[in-house]
């Protein structure tokens, strides 16, 4: 690999991680908008997903300045766990998971759908899509970094 092309890959990797940070920031601010501005209280599962999303907003920039190709190693665990939680949440809302293993017993039920856009976009779907995109982009940078 010549130095120029190495620098170029690094720049495009930087752009990928930057895109991850953009996604995470939009998701974090969006969730805050839902809860703090619109006044929808977050359910327990939403909080678990927030626990995975919010640190990304801070960890990813630490890997951007200066660029660290290994950032995926620290960010992927968060985004993958978040993705699993979001999928679990989606299945719960869709009714595929029986009541007995629902983790929400108090406060706001996780099955309550507070927002529906265009007939199918819900908050857990937004969360799942964000975590999925972030994970895919991070895996891409990791793959390229290890070649």
């Amino acid at each position: 690999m010549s130095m120029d092309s190495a620098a170029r890959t690094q720049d495009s990797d930087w752009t990928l991680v930057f895109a991850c940070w953009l996604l995470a920031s939009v998701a974090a601010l969006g969730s805050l908008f839902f809860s703090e501005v619109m006044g929808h209280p977050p359910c327990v599962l939403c909080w678990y997903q927030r626990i995975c999303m919010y640190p990304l907003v801070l960890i990813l920039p630490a890997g951007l300045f200066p660029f660290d190709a290994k950032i995926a190693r620290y960010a992927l665990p968060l985004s993958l766990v978040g993705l699993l939680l979001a999928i679990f949440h989606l299945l719960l809302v869709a009714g595929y998971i029986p009541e007995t293993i629902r983790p929400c017993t108090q406060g706001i039920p996780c099955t309550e759908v507070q927002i529906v856009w265009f007939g199918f976009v819900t908050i857990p779907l937004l969360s799942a899509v964000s975590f999925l995109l972030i994970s895919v982009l991070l895996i891409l940078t990791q793959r390229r970094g290890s070649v």
Partner: protein
Amino acid sequence: MKQKERKLKPAERGPKPKERELKKKEPKVKQGRLFVFAALLLLLAFIAGALFYQNQKSNEATQAYQRNKSTFVRDHSPALGNPTAKVEIVEFFDPACETCKAFFPLVKKLMAANPDRVRLYVRYAPFHSGSDYVVKILEAAKKQGKFWETLDALYAAQSSWAAHHNPQPQLVWNHIGGVGLDLDRIRQDMNASEIENIIRQDLADAKTLNVTMTPEFFVNGRPLPSFGADQLKDLVQSALAAAYR
């Protein structure tokens, strides 16, 4: 990647690394600027969105209020001030709530500062356990035409019957003797089913209007943008300015 660079370095001493640094510096500055720009843009979008949303909600509330006041004010709601006043404050309160007590003089001051232009309606939101007992006494006192006097007496003695959010409604009787009420009749009237219904109606309206804490104010249907004395003052001032141009 760093390891590869290290291996290459000894072989290519000379001007090359410096050139590379120069080339690299430019995208780095660009990246930094891009990041800062994006961060600011996101924050601005959030703030603008929040302001826009609140403004829209507030306008919707005013329109709903103009169309139909019934969830805000019921026929049974105690009122104070000029009936033809154009600025109407609706307050959801709990007699055992310390902040309600603290805000009451402020509301009275706002009314005194704008005589005949502000009318106050109060609604019950007995969220503390035991508060509904006190509300029943207030309603029974209303029948004797002494609602506001009784409320003043209750607030004045609040620290002795409702200290630390732990109301002991039975103690209330020791503090309303000076109002001049027929206490025996109060004890009879307070258990009327119509009073029960009034409390149920007020609690239902509180739920409809998303009142979860007391005191909650609506000025001509507009809720406080955030809780605070200044916010209430500003809201009343802007309502006055709009109604009495």
